[in-house]
């Protein structure tokens, strides 16, 4: 049959040929739009109204992130009169890098990632923090079978030498940076843990689950997550206990690109900051946002509030 000329199609082949013909006919429809300059998102952004792209380090479950930042985008858009879009990112490093390359305009960073982002993008502005962020705490937790005793003094931490220990995410301020700093103060180096290195569970929730199960003898978690885990029963007090609470340090904050005034008009950065600071529980939409953030309200913040984080970051080697 293959030698028959002119070409004769069998039933199936005819069907396939029709499909191919149709899709080839569609090609000119798809191709010009795909290849024309109008298709460039950048070009679109320049021709119409600029879009304020907001994002956040991914430290929550996606459903909550989508709900929370969807609300934030709506509220900011309403207050500022510009289109606002939430851009999810997959990890802490991607959030910092995308801020450096100018693809994100306003980002909810942690203490360490915020400092990293500002150092990589000179001129970036610290806008606000939550009321609870000025003095944030880390809780060291331990499995009850590990034999590690709780206490009120930092000396408690010396018991962790030779134990299996896990941090949260590598870039987390409360799950890694500050706990490593307080461990160093107590004379415990990361290579003194069992196995010669700490684990990185990836998140506070995972740290609690892994310490509770006994995979790790101890770990360090964000106080906010620890409290809510105790509250909703995810953490079982008979299996995992808090052994020491760190002194306070500054954590999460909003950071904005340096060029927002040029792109959105003079005074836009100030307007943006005022909008965030104006959110109150008396307004139902704003109350929903504040609840999801676990805060009463946002307060003004400035770069100098995070000098201590930068110093610790340099000491630990996370900032260079």
């Amino acid at each position: 049959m293959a030698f028959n000329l002119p070409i004769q199609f069998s039933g199936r082949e005819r069907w396939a040929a029709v499909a191919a013909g149709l899709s080839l006919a569609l090609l000119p429809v798809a191709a010009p739009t795909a290849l024309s300059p109008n298709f460039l998102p950048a070009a679109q952004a320049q021709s119409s109204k600029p879009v304020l792209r907001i994002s956040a380090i991914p430290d929550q479950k996606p459903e909550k992130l989508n709900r929370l930042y969807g609300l934030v985008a709506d509220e900011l858009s309403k207050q500022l009169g510009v289109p606002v879009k939430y851009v999810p990112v997959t990890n802490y490093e991607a959030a910092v890098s995308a801020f450096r390359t100018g693809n994100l305009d306003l980002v909810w960073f942690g203490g360490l990632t915020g400092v990293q982002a500002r150092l990589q993008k000179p001129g970036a502005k610290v806008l606000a923090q939550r009321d609870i962020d000025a003095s944030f705490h880390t809780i060291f937790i331990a499995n009850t079978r590990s034999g590690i005793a709780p206490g009120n003094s930092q000396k408690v931490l010396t018991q962790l030498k030779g134990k299996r220990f896990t941090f949260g995410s590598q870039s987390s301020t409360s799950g890694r940076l500050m706990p490593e700093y307080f461990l160093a103060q107590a004379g415990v180096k990361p290579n003194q843990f069992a196995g010669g290195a700490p684990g990185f569970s990836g998140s506070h929730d995972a740290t609690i689950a892994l310490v509770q199960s006994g995979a790790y003898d101890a770990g360090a978690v964000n106080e906010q997550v620890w409290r809510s885990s105790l509250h909703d029963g995810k953490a079982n007090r008979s299996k995992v206990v808090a052994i020491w609470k760190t002194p306070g340090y500054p954590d999460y904050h909003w950071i904005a690109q340096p060029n927002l005034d040029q792109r959105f008009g003079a005074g836009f950065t100030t307007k943006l900051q005022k909008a965030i600071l104006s959110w109150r529980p008396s307004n139902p939409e704003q109350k929903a946002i504040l609840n999801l953030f676990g805060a009463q309200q946002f307060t003004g913040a400035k770069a100098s509030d995070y000098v201590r984080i930068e110093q610790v970051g340099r000491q630990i080697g996370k900032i260079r």
Partner: protein
Amino acid sequence: MKPAAPLLVLLPALVLLPVLLALPAQVHGGGWELIGTFLKAAIQPSLDPLVLRSLLEGLGVTVGMALLGWACSVVIGIGLGIASSRLVWRSLSGSVLPAEVLRRLLALPRSIHELIWGLLLLQLVGLQPAVAVLAIAIPYGALVARVVSDLLDALPDQNLNALLLSGTAAPAALLTALGPPLLPGLISYGGYRLECALRSATLLGVFGLGGLGNELLLTLQSLEFRELWSGLWLLLAVMLGLEALIRRLRQRWGMPSRFGLGAGSSGQRGRELVVALLALLPVLLLVAQALQVDPMALLQWQPLPAMDGQHWGTALALPWLPLVWNTLLLTLLAAALAVGGAPLLLLWVAPWSWGRRLLQLLWALGRLWPPPLTALLLLFVLKPGVLTAALALGFHNLGILGRLLLEGAEVTGSAVEEALRCGGVGARIALLYGRYSGLARSYLAYGAYRSDVILRETVVVGLVAGTGLGSQLNESLSSFAWDQIALLLLVYAVLTIVGEDLSDRARRRLL
């Protein structure tokens, strides 16, 4: 003395002895409750419309990215594969040196995990959907190139020589003599890469687009098992659907199994194939448009992050020997578990009719669960360490290799096995001598390719403490320590080149 072929395939499974001996000391068993919660969540996944909508959107993005990344990688791979074939260069210029050089160079893009490619490209071109496509296309393209050049070099060259001796120009002779016999292997392997691309796009959690991987990773990290399972079930449906489709197409076009490196017929349905490929083109363009993948955006380069030269000392002072040792140990353990485990398990369940079904289900789960998920589940009952990480990687790759082995076994036909069975031989021995003996060498050669992939994947099981270069790379990335990252990637590349050299030699002896 060479061991008998049927036993060859079981050799890697010897690793089970030390593993089983070491395992009891690793068990802490404190998290069975959590494993129970995880399994219970499987039968009651979250049906919250908000969750489902975002999962479905994510699934669309992931499938689209996989398709685009796959298409690019196949095009890149065929081009580079031909350019790095010894046979082609020998015919064209008489020297195989360019092929050898290009082959070694291609180890560099291949040795870097998609996830890391994504982060590196993000530095260069910013947060663009096109980054995700390229992050898949680069390492996969290099991998396809290696397989294509291996396929080419393994083809019998009598036809080519005949054409060349009769005075045909080298390019025309190459195309005529090698094109048709290459096609079946190429299409079979290309189909398999699409399955891999789907898994990668899932793990990648596409940058700035969300995607199913993003959802899975975050639900996993927040231990929302019910929402996690909603995503896993969706992914399972798509994965099995895709695998079934590719399987049917392969059977229809008369293709050999994936790791059949021998020549086959060029297929009866060539015309249909061309038509299908033409039909794919507008689909790809529409997907690219829907996902706002814009190749032009890749040309707008961003300034690179500042790199000062002060920290090279710190970078060089990293504990390189233990890092490399742990990585090699992890890779070899995981590879041996996966390569040896698949035939061993099949043999074990051979006497029972339902055994194979059960295994297929288990393997589907292995392919479905990203290695970080398996690692977390294992940590609920095992202590952290190289063994736990190896089990996680081994389980994932066992799922992939097991399926390939079953497929290979199907293609070889059941005549010998049935003859043995009729002669009164037991089911296990019949399977071993009837099927595996013919399959052993190509299966092991394929296992060697897979070790390459496992080496790259050591990056993704960082939550298990001290797993070597992978843990260190994650740490250096989070510190934006570009000097350390550069050195680490270099070491990965060297390991890949050495590993490739060894597996090349092994394959030449095996095949």
